[in-house]
């Protein structure tokens, strides 16, 4: 076999189909927005040519966090709220791996909120997908931090009493924020475009995905799903462009430069119409793993030399 043939052969081997990324059969409810996110992830892996053995999907607990089971990559289905620090440990130990985090509005914005704030600050090269359906699903319908005021649930039967937390503005308020975007499950093409941009950004890419939960809050996003005019498509040469096909339906476009943090904060606070696209991006923010791995190589010799050097300081020699 000539070198060229071997090369082509190798390329063919490396070529993967969607099926190569499909794991177990999803057990989400009929019509659940998580399916759209799963499809976008599988397509992303295929199109970016990610080797399944070098890719890790990390999650916490909740409906969203079942996603790793449905991928044929490495997966880490952890504990409630702690997906981010687990993912950080993985990335720190193995910067060669592609690390994704799937988390829900309860997992990220409630029980794991402390980790979320600090993960933004660490800015490790991880792609985070916040499956935000505004409700706790797996525990059967309790209000979440992102539930709109007045949401009726099993823990708020007369309507929730607190205003919803906005994950986008919270993220944009934290030092070292480097990538914030918003997508919705019902526009798959734009979802795919956005997660691709998030993956390609080197740093902590935070994508809030508004996701329907037909089982518990079936009407939550209905007005927006049925009225394309209530979607605000963000477009910019530094961000993403809305495709001509989508433009025919979603005509409400707004030029938005994602390098401008003040404009980004303004856009983030809009809840109607729903902004979709890249809200903020700053590729200049250093990644924690790069800062920390700047030191010496880890070899048996470097360990021996360091240990002996230290022991020298504390050694009492016989006289």
């Amino acid at each position, binding site marked *: 076999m000539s070198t060229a043939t071997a090369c082509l052969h190798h390329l063919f081997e490396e070529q993967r189909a969607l099926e190569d990324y499909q794991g*177990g059969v999803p057990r989400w409810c009929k019509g659940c927005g998580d399916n759209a996110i799963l499809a976008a992830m599988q397509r992303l892996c295929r199109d970016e040519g990610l080797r399944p053995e*070098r890719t890790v999907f990390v999650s916490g607990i909740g409906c969203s966090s079942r996603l790793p089971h449905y991928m044929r990559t490495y997966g880490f289905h952890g*504990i409630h709220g702690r997906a981010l620090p687990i993912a950080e440990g993985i990335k720190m130990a193995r910067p060669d791996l592609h690390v994704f985090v799937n988390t829900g509005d309860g997992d990220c914005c409630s029980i794991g909120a402390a980790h979320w704030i600090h993960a933004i600050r660490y800015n490790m090269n991880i792609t985070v997908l916040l499956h935000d359906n505004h409700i706790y699903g797996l525990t059967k319908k309790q209000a979440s931090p992102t539930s709109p005021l007045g949401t009726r649930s099993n823990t708020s039967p007369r309507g929730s009493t607190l205003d919803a937390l906005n994950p986008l503005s919270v993220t944009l308020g934290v030092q070292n924020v480097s990538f914030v975007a918003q997508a919705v499950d019902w526009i798959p093409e734009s979802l795919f475009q956005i997660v691709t941009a998030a993956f390609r950004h080197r740093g902590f890419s935070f994508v809030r995905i508004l996701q329907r939960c037909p089982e518990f809050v079936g009407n939550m996003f209905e007005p927006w799903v049925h009225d394309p005019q209530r979607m605000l498509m963000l477009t910019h040469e530094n961000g993403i462009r809305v495709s001509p096909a989508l433009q025919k339906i979603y005509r409400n476009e707004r030029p938005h430069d994602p390098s401008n943090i003040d404009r980004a904060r303004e856009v983030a606070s809009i809840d109607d119409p729903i902004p979709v696209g890249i809200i903020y991006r700053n590729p200049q923010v250093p990644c924690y793993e790069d800062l920390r791995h700047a030191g010496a190589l880890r070899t048996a010799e470097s360990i021996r030399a360091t240990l002996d050097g230290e022991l020298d300081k504390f050694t009492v020699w016989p006289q």
Partner: protein
Amino acid sequence: MNAVTNIRPRGATARSAATAAAAKQLVTLDEYIVEIMSDSGEGAQKCGQSFGSIAARMGNGVWTVEIIPAEIQPPARSVAGASGNRIRIGSQRITNGGDEAGLVVAFNEQVLIGRLNAGELRPGCIVLLESMWGESADAKIAAQYAETRDRLIADGYRVYEVPMEKECRTLVNDPRKGKNMFVLGMLCNLFSLEMNLAREQIAFIFGKKDEKVIKSNVALLEAGCAWAEENLDFKFAVPAERATEAQVVVNGNSALALGILASGMDICAMYPITPATSTSHYLSDIFERAGGIVHQAEDEIAACAFAIGASYTGKVAVTITSGPGYSLKQEGIGLAVMAEIPLVVVDVQRGGPSTGQPTKAEQSDLLSVMFGSHGDAPKVVLAVSSIEDCFYSMITARRIAETFNMVVVVLSDASLATAQQPFPRPQFSPDWLAPPIDQNPVPEGATPYDWDPVTGLSRRFVPGQPNGMHTLTGLAHDRSSRVAYDPDINQQGMHARSLKLAALQKTLTPPRVFGAEEGDLLIVGWGSTKGAIEEAVERLCAEGHKVSSLHLTFLQPMPSGIKEILQRFRKVITIESNWSDDPHDALIDPTNRRYSALAMLLRARYLVDVDCWSEVRGRPIKPGTICEVIRPRLAPKEAHS
């Protein structure tokens, strides 16, 4: 000479310098305990540690104990704010802090009060007391000083008033910074330590600063030495039997850090907590030079999760904490147990529950570490009992974690954390290091939880290994790591995870009895009490009693052979620094008595009637106290009643 008129040996009569020096006789001792007490920030710690290091260089056995207030800058001249160091030096190896001190240096009279009240000073103890407070312009201070001094004298302590401030002022402008070196000089003179070694020690501790600082401190050292020579009427020598091999002098927490470095672990994730944190301080200083990383996480939970994530990808990581932090890590530890991710957790125990006594030693976390998390979560628990142990425990823990895919918890405590004791210099071996991360393709058909029916062991697959893709989960799972609620599969998984403890247990050697193999009474202990227990056993045997001791390193699993040992003694008792009910309390009877942790475990496992004695005074248990506890239990029954 003003300085001399202030000296008051034993009574109120002052002696002249000439008499002091002429009357001096060199008294040779086997061992001695010195305490140096000051306000926080006056350098008593540095003075005490230096004194210990110099003695160690002379070849003496040494054990130093830090006496630390919980606050950084507690009020000056306060009982609670006293900070200091106890140094026990001996001709032979010293394994614990000993009983009461024979000499104490006090930078003011208030810092003595806590030590007096706690009974830490022996009757007739020599007190070298800073005399400046007696001349204070503040009448209240002068009165406080006089009152304490007179009480000490009346109680039979040998009080020497030493004008430390005044003497230091002839050399430096701010005696607050330097008085400790003057004291070090006095102590070198009083204990016949070589001044050259003391000068070298000063050069070492101030090595990062300029020559001027070293010079000024050496001058203070020499002044202290000369002053003691001229003005004090006693002098001791503790002859040293020099070691034949190089010894290392570090405290327990530094030894842990060096152990982590030597074990080949790459990542340590932590959150600040007393008394564990100084391990991470030191590790942060040295780890990066060898490519390691200390990650200070946003909280204890994140530190644990971060370490789990790092371990998952190949090499075992470590997280270090103390009791309250351990509680927070418990859920994460359960995940590591369930998913069989190796992990090393260090718990440097402190007084609990809740915030408890952050700077004080206790052994109260054993049961929560062993049985903690939720559900059945078997993990390996071992306890260190010396400074040397702190070093090697990290290498052992890493290896066990990796071999058995288990969580290994290493228990230390506040007394080992800051105690110093020389031990033979470790000789690095590449075998200590973790093997490289396996990135080979996984054979077709292999599963990530292919539990061996006998040992429960399975080979884990790590990211990067082709064909090994699976989703690890904290949910019940089958051999392929698929979520499974099948009743048989859950039974199998639990079985396998539990079997691994038995598999490890089969590799452990039975513990060795200290002293005779059989006798009237066996003391069982674990952790930092080892030195004190064994010293007590030696003393009791010297009195003619048939007492031995057994010290456990592995608490879960416990090695085989323990039951047989327990059965060879008429009585068995554990000595522990945790809570147990006093059987003489009005409401306590054998059916409701709460036993110490180890006693409870031994009783449950071996069906042997194990008694216990414990205290939670926040200080290391003294060998003398143990002797007092044991003697009445050895007396014939009729004599006792």
